Each structure stands twice: as C-alpha cells, then as structure tokens.
C-alpha cells in the first residue's frame, strides 16, 4: 500500500507537477476534543499560488504547521516531490526543510525578541553551512535589500522595528534557505492597511521572480482573489470547496462559501 502511494506520488510529481500532495491529513487536540484538521486532502502544483480561506479557528494555521511537519499529525500522509515526509530519515528531512518555509501571521511573535536582525538571517547560513563565513554578512545584506530593508537593520532588535519591517524580516528568513514552497499564514492580516499592500506586492514579486509556490492562507477574500490561482475553502477542519478563484467566487457551491462571499461584499 505504502509502496504504491510513494510510487504514485512520484509519478504525479513528474507528470502533473504536483509538488505537494496532502492525503487524508488529520489532527485532533485531545484537550479540546476537536479535530482541528479533519481528513484533509489536496495537491499543490509547482509555481501556483493556492489560496486557503476560512474563518479564524477553522484549522488553517494548524494545517500549515502540519504540512511543514512542525506539528505531528494523527493520521495521513504528505508527499513532497514524491517523498513521503512521514517516512523519511532524519537527515533527509533536514535537507527537505530547506525547500519548505513559512511566513507567520504575527510578526511580533515570529522573531526571537533577543536576536538581532542580522543574526536571524545568518543563523540559517550557520545551520546549512551553504554560505562560507566570509560571505555571510554580504549575503545577509543582499537578502535584506531584496525584501526592502538594508544594511542599517543588521544590528537592530525586533523591538526597534515596525510591524511591516518585522514581516519583511520574516520573509527574508524564509527566503534565506532558498525554498521552493512557502506557506504564507495570514502574512498581512495583523498589519496596517497601507502596509498590507506593500507586503503583498513584495510577496507577489518574489513569487514571480523566483518561481516560488505559495500556499496562501487568509480570511480576506479580497486578498485571495487578487493573488491566487486556485482557492480552497475550509470550515471547522474540513475542506468544503475548491477550484479556480473565478469559479469559486462567481459560482459558489457550498452554502458556507456563499455566506463568506456575501459578508465580504457587504464591507
């Protein structure tokens, strides 16, 4: 059974460019007696921006952490480029981690409060030893410039930065491993409206330039509609609808999706 899945997933990657295949993923929290993620299956194709919408608490962030194996799943499997991430050696997983990154919602919680910005980025190079020690500083500056910051930020602490600037640092950290796939977990929803557009533009520009694949999580349908190719709708742990943005927005099948769309239009 497992062998077949593995081979099937490898084929699906090489034939249809299914970069990531999520199969029947489930995660429950015993304390709350709920299934935060309830038998979720979907694929992410290489180079696309896949949206995930749903109200807060519906399990979007848990799903994000499961996909990157930051949390353990109760059941199910994840294939990345045909490799089963739940049946992989410690060493291979370390190498695979490079390809899969995440940008968090709250830029105030996603940076170590005691770590200078330069060190946040350099730490990645320190872990992978992919950049020689002499080049680390210049690579760090280069990366900070890519996200619209610069050398002056090297020795600053997160507490000295604004929310937008911190989110840029978070993006730079995710880019430092040179990933293929990035989960953007509500990357703009805790930022000011004016800053939201800047960060979104940066994310879109990076996606195009580096041919990245995004799983873009948001509760804001406007944001999803403007940047995503396909969209999935999640409600209390289950995926209830998915399809191209156009189809889902114009012709929603599920009652919950209709409600979501209506409430978005009212604003």
């Amino acid at each position: 059974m497992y062998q077949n899945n593995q081979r099937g997933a490898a084929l699906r990657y090489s034939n249809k460019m299914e970069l990531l295949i999520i199969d029947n993923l489930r995660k429950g929290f015993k304390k709350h007696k709920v299934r935060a993620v309830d038998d979720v299956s979907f694929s992410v194709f290489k180079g696309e921006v896949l949206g995930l919408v749903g109200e807060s608490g519906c399990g979007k962030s848990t799903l994000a952490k499961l996909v990157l194996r930051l949390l353990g799943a109760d059941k199910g499997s994840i294939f990345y480029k045909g490799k089963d991430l739940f049946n992989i050696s410690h060493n291979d997983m370390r190498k695979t981690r490079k390809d899969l990154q995440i940008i968090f919602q709250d830029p105030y919680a996603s940076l170590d409060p005691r770590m200078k910005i330069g060190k946040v980025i350099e730490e990645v190079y320190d872990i992978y030893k992919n950049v020689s020690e002499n080049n680390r500083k210049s690579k760090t500056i280069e990366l900070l410039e890519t996200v619209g910051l610069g050398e002056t930020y090297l020795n600053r602490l997160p507490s000295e930065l604004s929310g937008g600037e911190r989110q840029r640092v978070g993006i730079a950290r995710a880019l430092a491993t040179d990933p293929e796939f990035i989960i953007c977990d509500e990357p703009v929803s805790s930022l000011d409206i004016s800053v939201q557009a800047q960060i979104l533009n940066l994310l879109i520009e990076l996606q195009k330039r580096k041919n990245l694949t995004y799983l873009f999580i948001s509760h804001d349908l406007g944001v999803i509609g403007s940047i995503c190719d396909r969209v999935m709708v999640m409600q209390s742990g289950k995926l209830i609808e998915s399809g191209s943005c156009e189809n889902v927005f114009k012709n929603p099948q599920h009652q919950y999706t209709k409600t979501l769309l209506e409430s978005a239009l009212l604003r």
Partner: protein
Amino acid sequence: MNKLTLFGLGIVGFFIIVAIFAPVIAPYNPGQIDIENILTPPSSSHIFGTDSLGRDLFSRMVYGSRISLMVGFIAVGIAGLIGIALGAIAGYYGKWADTVIMRFIDIMLCFPTFFLILAVIALLEPSIINIMVIIGVTSWMGMARLMRAEILSLKERDFIYAEKAIGASDLRIIARHLIPNAMAPVLVSVTLGIAGAILVESGLSFLGIGVQPPTPSWGNILSEGKAVMGAGWWMMLFPGLSIFITVLGYNLLGEGIREKLLK
C-alpha cells in the same frame, strides 16, 4: 527601581567589593596569632576587637566574606546548571522526559534539605568544595520548575516554530532561543538562592561541620564566638550582623528584580 532594591544592590555590591579586595582592606593577616592581645574589645588598632587567639576580627571577617560569597555563588551556580538543564529538557520534550524529571523533583523535595546535607557531610569530609557541591545538588528543584514553566509557554510561540522550519536542531533551539528568553524568573531564583546558600553554609559552619578553622568563614567565626559569648560580645555581633545584612541584601535585590519583571 525602588529604594529598597537599590539598598539591596548596594549591600550586595559592597560585600562583593570587600571580598575581591580583601588583601587590601584587611589590616592584619587573618591567621596571625597574638597571645598578648586575646579577646580585646573593639579599639582603634582592632576595630572589631580580637578573638580568643588574639587574631584581628576585622581581618578575619573580611577574608571570611570571600568564603561565604564563594560558597553562595558556586553552590547556586551548580544548582542553576542542574535546574536549568533539567527544567529545559522537561519543558521542551514533555511526555516521559517531563514525567520522569518532575517526579524526580517531587522526590528531591521530600528530603529535609538541611538534614540531608548534615548526613552527607558527616559521611564525607567537610571541605569547602564538598559543601558547595552538596548545597548545589540539593537546591536546584525550584529553578527547574521555573525553567520548565517558562519553556512550556515559550515553545508554542511562532519564533520557535520558525526555528524548526529553518531546520534548527533541538540543541540550538533550547540553548540559543528558549533558555535565554526564559532566564528572567530564574535570575530571581538565583539571587534568592545565593542568600539561602550563604545561610546554609553559615549554619553548617556554626555547627562545626562547615568550613573548617583556621580558614575563616562568617559561620565558624560565629561558632568560635559562641564559646566566649560572655567575655567577648563582639565575636558574635559582627559575624551575625554580616550574615543578616548580606542575606537581607540578596533578598531585597531578588524581590526587586521580581517586581520589575512582573510589571
């Protein structure tokens, strides 16, 4: 910072300076016996008086501060290493590691510490090193609990997930990100712990199984003073007062730091 905290900091700083500069401050050699001046009361040549062997009490007190503070710092250092390491492991890994470590702490807390120390010292020889080690290995439990509690809440923060996502090892996450961010409450415990360790050392020395004469420590000077209480009040007053003030200083400082952190 409030006045009491500053006062505590002043006391702590004062005694640390006295300990560091003991050879400069002490007017006499603390071991120098002077048979002609036995038990002389405080005077201009011996400001704290002399003891039953004619040794200058002030000089002995100054050198004794070195021993007392050293025991305090090193004992708490040992306790801190054990407590921080075990607390971090219990908090980060959870599951059976947490169960084993927490039950071990429960067991350690069942022993009446002072009598455990008495029993161990009675078996081993009462050297300064033994005393520091035994105080250290019997007083780490509070720090371990504090560390565990801090790490339990820190490890759910996004920056720790981000570390995992960039492939940081457990050791790197614990040592570079969790422990430094969890140190604040442990620091309070360390400060209060130094006061506790100084008291235990004084208690042991007073009972004659702590730091052994002729090495001066505040506890054994107090113990020698007990024998001549009627003839030389200064022999008990000065060491007693020093212990009292030092412990007060560390406690005030610790409470001050705690208040500052809780705000």
